[in-house]
């Protein structure tokens, strides 16, 4: 069995020092995604691991009028324990559908967003909400949209030699929120995916339309979203069928693994959004 060197940094400065010395060190918060995806009795870990779950700076929650900001090591149970007025309503429902209570007690928001193999449940939802993430590295810190955690090949793109330290979720209400989780596995498998659509409706028009479908890969078409935003809710059925067909075609071209459930969801979401 290959042994790993385990570090227990006390603060972010120590984590950054570890990253400077070894950019490939594994930062492990809850560890549920890494440990749970391994079938062997012994967990396979890289040469160096830093256990960061107890770093207080990464567990703070701040709420202002505009946004909810959480440290990356905030557990799902920690998020669900926030006052209902602090938590965007559908976010609580999405988190409650992740695993079971035992898992939610250890899994963290940062770990969910930093999974390198696939997109987990929160990414599509936070991407639609235009949430921001802060990355800190030995050379400085920067904020980026959650959408930037998706590479050009539509697969997760997690910046190297840096730590996701904070997640900032805008507290902006949407009139229309639709999400479906596909697959029943506690852990994501090849058949699991998330479909999320959000929009506002003002003066009988659809505004701020966003639609994300993610599993192994993520699919979002910002130009299509722009073309749908501004359409009347009474848009004729024929035109709506056109949106569905365009989305289906574009996503198939991008390499969607199985278009069947996706088509049904598209028809359902457009059927509900447009009267």
């Amino acid at each position: 069995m290959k042994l790993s060197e385990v570090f227990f940094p006390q603060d972010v400065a120590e984590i950054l020092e570890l990253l400077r010395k070894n950019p490939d060190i594994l930062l492990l918060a809850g560890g549920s995604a890494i440990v749970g995806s391994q079938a062997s009795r012994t967990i396979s870990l890289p040469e160096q691991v830093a256990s960061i779950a107890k770093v207080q700076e990464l567990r703070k929650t701040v709420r202002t009028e505009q946004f909810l900001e959480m440290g990356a090591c905030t557990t799902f149970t920690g998020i669900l324990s926030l006052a209902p007025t602090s938590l965007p309503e559908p976010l609580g429902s999405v988190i409650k559908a992740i695993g079971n209570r035992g898992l939610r007690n250890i899994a963290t928001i940062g770990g969910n967003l930093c999974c390198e193999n696939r997109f987990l449940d929160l990414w599509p939802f936070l991407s639609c909400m235009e949430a921001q993430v802060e990355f800190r590295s030995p050379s400085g810190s920067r904020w980026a949209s959650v959408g930037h955690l998706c590479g050009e090949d539509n697969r997760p793109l997690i910046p190297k030699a840096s730590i996701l330290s904070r997640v900032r979720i805008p507290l902006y209400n949407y009139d229309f929120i639709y999400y479906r989780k596909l697959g029943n596995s506690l852990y994501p498998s090849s058949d699991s995916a998330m479909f999320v659509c959000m929009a506002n409706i003002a003066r009988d028009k659809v505004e701020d339309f966003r639609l994300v479908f993610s599993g192994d890969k993520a699919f979002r078409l910002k130009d299509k979203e722009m073309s749908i935003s501004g359409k009347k809710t009474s848009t004729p059925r024929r035109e709506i069928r056109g949106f569905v067909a365009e989305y289906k075609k574009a996503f198939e071209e991008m390499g969607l693994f199985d278009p069947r459930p996706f088509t049904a969801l598209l028809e359902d979401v457009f059927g509900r959004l447009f009267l």
Partner: protein
Amino acid sequence: MIIDVTVNGVPRHLKSRSGDRLVDMLRKELKLLSLSPDCLQGRCGKCLVFMDGRIVHSCLVPAFKARATTILTFEAIAKNPEVKDIEKAFQITQTQPCPFCRSAKIMAIFDLLSRIPLPGEEDILEALDMVSCPCSDPLGLIQAVKLAAELRNKRKFSREA
């Protein structure tokens, strides 16, 4: 490496390798045989422990993460009067979980009742979702948990009165 951890109220210095799971360290070093590394995915619930007061699947936790934490296993919880209420409720409602998942179900119900003294059906199902053994009828279990809550509250309130 040596992990300093308090298990069932006793400070311990346990030997572990970096790739060990918490469940394996507790079984190997302390012979806590109520724990079983079965599914290794946090489904079966046979490795449930309380870590710093929160119920977790110890198969999903690397052993080194237990450093400077407080762990409670079924061996310690079993002495609690709340567990007697749960066992009595199992008896009265004739809902006997199988020997493989009995301690896990008690742990899950114990956690639920310590958070929610009068749980609804949804809360009960959410708690039992941590133990995926299909041995007992879910309706019977719901009835048993409700009765356990009643017994617990009656015992607590009569003592306070």
